[in-house]
C-alpha cells in the first residue's frame, strides 16, 4: 500500500515539481512581494501596506483600468452567452452537413490568439481593411476602428464573439444532455418550438450556463492579449484593461511589489464575484433528473 503511494507520487512528480516551482512558490511569494518595494534589480524592501494604499487612494489609472475591465465584463460576457447559446441551439438542429458547420464555428477558438489579433488588426485597418472597404461599398466611411474612441473598446468586444465557439461546444454538450422525453412531454402538452426553448431547453441548460458564466467572468477579468497586441491600451487608456495595466506596472516600470498588490486585488475581486454568483445559483440553476 505504501509502496503504491510512493510510486504514485513518483509518477506525478514531473507535474508536481512544475506546479510547486512555477505556480505555488510564485503565488505565495507574491503575497510577500505585494508588501514590498521591489524593482527586480535591488532586493525587495518591506513597506507594509503602502502599495495597497497608493493603489486605492492615489492611482487614477488603477480605478480607470478596473472600470474598463468591469465594463468589458458587463458587455462582452452577456453578449458572448447570448451568441454562444444561440449558436449552440442552431448547431443542435438536425440538418444536412451539421457536423461541418459545428467544425467551422468551433475552428476560430483553436487558432492561436496572436494570429487572430494580426488578422483582425488588418481587417480593422481604417484605410485598407476589409471592414471599411465593405462599408465604403455601402457608401459609409468607417471609423478608425482601433485608434479612436469609443470604437477601439467596442472593436475588442465584437472581436470576442470570434471565439464564442469554445463555450458554444459546452452549451451544445449541455443541449445533447436534455432527455428527449421532456420535449415529447412538452409537445403533447402543447408547447411549440419557441415555448419548448423557453420552458424546457433554457432551464435544463442552466447548469452549463452557470458554468460558462463563471468561467467567462474570470476570463474577462484576465483580459490581456488582444489589448496588448492590437491597441496597446489606447486610445487615451480606453482599452487599458486591468491585466494590461498590471503588466505595464510590472515589466515597463519594473514595479513588482506594486504589481503584486494589483494581482492580489484582482484575485480577491474574482473570488468575491464568483462567491456572489454561487449565492444566486440556487435560485436559477436547475440540476435535472
Amino acid at each position, binding site marked *: 500500500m505504501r509502496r503504491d503511494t510512493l510510486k504514485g507520487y513518483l509518477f506525478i512528480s514531473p507535474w508536481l515539481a512544475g506546479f510547486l516551482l512555477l505556480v505555488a512558490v510564485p503565488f505565495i511569494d507574491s503575497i510577500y512581494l505585494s508588501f514590498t518595494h521591489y524593482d527586480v534589480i535591488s532586493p525587495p524592501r518591506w513597506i507594509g501596506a503602502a502599495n495597497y494604499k497608493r493603489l486605492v487612494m492615489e492611482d487614477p489609472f488603477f480605478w480607470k483600468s478596473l472600470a474598463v475591465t468591469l465594463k468589458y465584463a458587463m458587455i462582452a460576457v452577456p453578449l458572448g452567452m447570448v451568441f454562444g447559446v444561440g449558436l449552440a441551439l442552431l448547431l443542435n438542429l438536425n440538418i444536412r452537413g451539421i457536423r461541418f458547420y459545428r467544425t467551422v464555428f468551433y475552428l476560430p477558438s483553436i487558432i492561436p490568439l496572436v494570429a487572430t489579433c494580426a488578422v483582425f488588426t488588418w481587417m480593422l485597418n481604417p484605410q485598407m481593411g476589409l471592414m471599411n472597404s465593405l462599408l465604403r461599398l455601402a457608401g459609409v466611411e468607417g471609423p478608425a476602428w482601433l485608434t479612436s474612441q469609443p470604437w477601439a473598446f467596442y472593436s475588442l468586444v465584437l472581436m470576442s464573439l470570434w471565439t464564442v465557439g469554445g463555450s458554444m461546444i459546452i452549451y451544445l454538450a449541455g443541449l445533447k444532455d436534455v*432527455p428527449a*422525453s*421532456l420535449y*415529447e*412531454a*412538452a*409537445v*403533447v*402538452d*402543447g*408547447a411549440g418550438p419557441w*415555448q419548448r426553448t423557453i*420552458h*424546457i431547453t433554457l*432551464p*435544463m441548460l*442552466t447548469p452549463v450556463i452557470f458554468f460558462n458564466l463563471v468561467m467567462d467572468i474570470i476570463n474577462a477579468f484576465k483580459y490581456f492579449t488582444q489589448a496588448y497586441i492590437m491597441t496597446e491600451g489606447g486610445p487615451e487608456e480606453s482599452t487599458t484593461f486591468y491585466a494590461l495595466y498590471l503588466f505595464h506596472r510590472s515589466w515597463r516600470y519594473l514595479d513588482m511589489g506594486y504589481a503584486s498588490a494589483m494581482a492580489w486585488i484582482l484575485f480577491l475581486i474574482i473570488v468575491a464575484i464568483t462567491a456572489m454568483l454561487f449565492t444566486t445559483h440556487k435560485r436559477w440553476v*436547475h*440540476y*435535472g*433528473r
Partner: protein
Amino acid sequence: MRPLKVEIAVANVHLKNVSKRYEDGNEVVRNLTLSIQNGEFLVLVGPSGCGKSTTLRMIAGLEEISEGTIHIGDRIVNEIPPKDRDIAMVFQNYALYPHMTVYDNMAFGLKLRRVSKPEIKQRVDRAAAILGLEELLRRKPKALSGGQRQRVAMGRAIVRKPSVFLFDEPLSNLDAKMRVEMRREILQLHRQVATTMIYVTHDQVEAMTLGNRICVMNEGVVEQVGRPATIFDHPASLFVARFIGTPPMNIFDGRLVQEGGALLFDGGAIRVPLPSDKADMVAAYAGKEVCLGIRARALRLVQDSGAVACSFGGQVEVSEMLGEEVLVHIAAGRHRFVASIHPHEAAELGNEAVHFAPHLRSIHLFDAESGRNLTLPPDVTRTTLPRGEAE
C-alpha cells in the same frame, strides 16, 4: 385514491392498415388494424422490439405514420400535431419537468392552452385530490419517490381532460411492490374517469390484470386481440401461448398419427389421444408435424397411471415452491415440461418417476410450421384474430 367524479370526453380510436417504416427500410409495424372502443382499456403487449411503443407513439403523434390512417373520434389525425389530438401521455421515465414544482408540472399544459388561472387551480387541485398529491404540490420532482412521480405524471394527463390516455410502460421503473400498488391505482383511475386508455407494456401480468382487452404483438404485427381470459384460454399461436401466462404453456413437438380409428398426438415419450371435437378440427393434419400445448395447471398428478385414460411420466428435475402451488419441472425423454401441483402433493413426491394426466378438454394443437392454433373455437377465431378486425 378517493372516489371523485371526473367528466372527460371519450373517443373511439381506429387504426387502419397502419405501417411504420424507417428510412433504412426497417419496418417495425406492419399493416396494423385495430379498433379501440369508447372508454375501453386496451393493453398493447409484446416483447421489446415488437412495435407496441411505436404504435402508441404514432397514435400520440410523436412518430410519423408511414402508411394507413389513424382516427381519433371522427377525425383522421395523421396530419394533426400531438397537441391537437386530444390525447395525454404518461411516459416510461415520467418525463416530469425537473425545474418545475408538482403544481407547475400539472399546470404547464393548461397554461400553454391559455386556460384561466382559477380554472387551472381548480383542475390541478382536483387531480391532486384524486391521486393523493395535495401535500406535494410545492415540491420538485427530485424530492418525490418513484410512485409519487408516477402519480404526478398521471395527474399531468388527467388535468388536460383528454379523450384518450396513452401509457408507455409507466410502471417499468418501479419496484415490484410499488408496481402492484400502482396497477390498482391505474385501474381505479380508469373506473373514475371512464376514458379510453391505451397502455403499452412488455409485462404480460400487467397486461392481463389491467386490460379490458389486450393486443399481443410480435415483430410488428398483431398476433391476437381479445379479452385477457379468452387469450389465456385460447392463444391463437405458439407465440401467444408462450408469451401469455406464468409459467408459459408447455409445448411438445411431435406428429399427429392415426391409430385404431382415432387421432393421437405422438411425441415419443408423450402420447395423447385427442378428444373427438379436437380431432375433428385437426383431421386434415393427420401425419403432419404439430405441437401440443398444455398449461401447467391442466396437468394432474396421478399415482396409478393405469387408472386414467391418458397419462405420461418423467423425472422431477427441480421444484419451485411458490406458496399456493409448487411448480415441478419434469424431464420426459427429449421433452421438458412444468406442472403445477398442490404443496401437499409435492411433499409426498419421491425420486421415482411421476405421472401426470392432462386435462384433455384444455389441450391445444398448433401447426408446427405456421405456429397457428388449430383448435381455436370458431367464435374466438372470428373475434380475436387481426383478420377478424379488418373492415
